[in-house]
């Protein structure tokens, strides 16, 4: 069995003079939940649509479940569930009719009890006409259609965009259930907390290039931390913030110090041994802060 469910090498795609993808390399491992993180226009949707042969890359190689989607798109799509970023459904049908129609295209492979179970979990009324559904409910129909045939790979473009927080959590649960039953999940998002809560690994895309691929936890761990130190008495703490990788954020009353530490904390802790420390706290940054550092570095370069 191939370990990489999605393998992308040197993927390039332009729309006229706009370079959407400028040479992307990605590997998504079997059975993982992989978050694809980036702001709007970074190239997330373009990448996902290339995986399904909806658009054709200018250069680069793609393998999905070991198959070249351009050579055999039907084989890829048979094993894949897809939720488009801009989901459009047939307004003249009910949710149930729409799902039946899509199931028809899959050769009636879906287990209808499972469809009903998914609809129940998402609190989706299948009897309602699609034209009467809210955007959130339409997305629920999209999620059900992506999951209903129990695909080996789920490609979801912003799956929780437009859902309320409770429903977002429900979707995350469904993704974890799909993973538990052996599926690989590749989802894009610009909601950092979502990726942080769900994905085991994350790729950050910016301006058509992968800025970083890492395990979500390690990305957060090895990035910046904030250290809050309270001293018993006023001290001259300058030696602390002149250490390599350490930056002063604030120092109030010469007793309350807040530092930003990049990388290992070891050096700072050793240096603190020479100070009358009353309290010491560290905070890990959210993925959002990590994410923003990539874009701040971009702005500085610019």
């Amino acid at each position, binding site marked *: 069995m191939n370990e990489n469910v999605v393998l992308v090498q040197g993927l390039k795609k332009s729309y006229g003079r706009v370079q959407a993808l400028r040479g992307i390399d990605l590997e998504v491992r079997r059975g993982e939940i992989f978050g694809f993180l980036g702001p709007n226009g970074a190239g997330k949707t373009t990448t996902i649509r290339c995986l*399904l042969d909806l658009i*054709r890359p200018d250069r680069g190689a793609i393998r999905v479940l070991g198959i070249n989607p351009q050579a055999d798109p*039907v084989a890829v*799509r048979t094993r894949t569930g897809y939720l488009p970023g801009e989901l459009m459904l047939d307004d003249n049908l009910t949710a149930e009719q729409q799902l039946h*129609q899509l199931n028809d*295209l899959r050769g009636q492979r879906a287990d209808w009890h499972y469809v009903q179970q998914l609809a129940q979990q998402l609190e989706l009324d299948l009897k309602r006409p699609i034209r009467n559904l809210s955007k959130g409910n339409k997305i629920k129909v999209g999620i059900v259609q992506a999951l209903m045939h129990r695909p080996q790979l789920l490609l979801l473009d912003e799956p929780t965009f437009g859902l309320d927080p409770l429903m977002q959590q429900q979707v995350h649960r469904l993704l974890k259930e799909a993973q538990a039953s052996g599926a690989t999940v590749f989802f894009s998002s610009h909601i950092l907390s979502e990726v942080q809560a769900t994905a085991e690994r994350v790729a950050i895309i910016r301006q058509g290039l992968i800025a970083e691929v890492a395990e979500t936890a390690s990305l957060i761990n090895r990035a910046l931390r904030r250290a809050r130190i309270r001293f018993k008495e006023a001290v001259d703490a300058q030696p602390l913030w002149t250490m390599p990788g350490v930056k002063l954020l604030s120092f109030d009353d010469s007793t309350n110090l807040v530092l930003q530490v990049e990388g290992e904390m070891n050096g700072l802790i050793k240096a603190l041994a020479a100070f009358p420390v009353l309290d010491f706290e560290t905070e890990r940054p959210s993925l959002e802060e990590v994410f923003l550092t990539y874009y701040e570095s971009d702005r500085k370069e610019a």
Partner: protein
Amino acid sequence: MSTVFRHALRRFRGQVLSWGMALALLGWMIVSVYDTIAAQQENIIKLISNYPRELMAFFGAGNRPLDLFTPEAFLSFEFLSLAPVILGIFAVLTGSGLLVGDEEKGTLDLLLAHPISRSALFLGRLLASVVATLGILAIIWLGFMVAMSWSTLRVGELDLWGPLLSLLAVLLFFVTLSLLLSMVLPSRRLAASVAGLFLVASYFVTSLSSINDNLETAARFSPLSYYQTEEAFHNLNAHWLVGLLLVAALFAALAWWQFQRRDIRVGGEAGWRVPALALPRR
């Protein structure tokens, strides 16, 4: 492909019924006034003989003596001469929207994420459009047959299929032309406009070429020059019929080739960029 065909045909149901019923009703009205008009034959001939030749040319009676009162001529004059333009609207809208309609609505993305090849989608939809067109013609035929059972106007059941087959070939020409244009032009609306203009221009050129020799060369390139009305009841020109169908098949093949190669748009109507006018800055 059969699933795509079934789904597409189901979507055509309403259009087939509405176009078919409307034109069958028109046919029924035309047949039902035949007896009254035939009774007024002399007066009507006098009236029509005062019409300008240019006007008569549009009814397929430009350069020949008018014999309006045979059933074949009457049906041609009243219905068949205009049918390619009327049903041409259906053909142009159907062809231009066959795939790009869904693309612009944004539903093609989800559809093509399912295990269907682009070829199967293309062929399933195209075949459904052919069957839908045939369905409309069948309803029209039925309308005429029912109406004729109450009238003195009579043509053979099979004979009416002569001009209807010729009409089918013209309609398929415009379905596939619009489909091809929708593949190469940036929007459905533009494809429909170009194909619609060509349809109307063809009608004018073909009609007027019967009274103006200067238009004969242009008329050779008009598909409507190979459409038969009155003559097709008993003498359908198979070469013209097959010729139109072959051109339609060529358009379909080119459209298929283009559909295989192109990116599927996410949604919305695309457009050609017109360079913005560079206004001098103050």
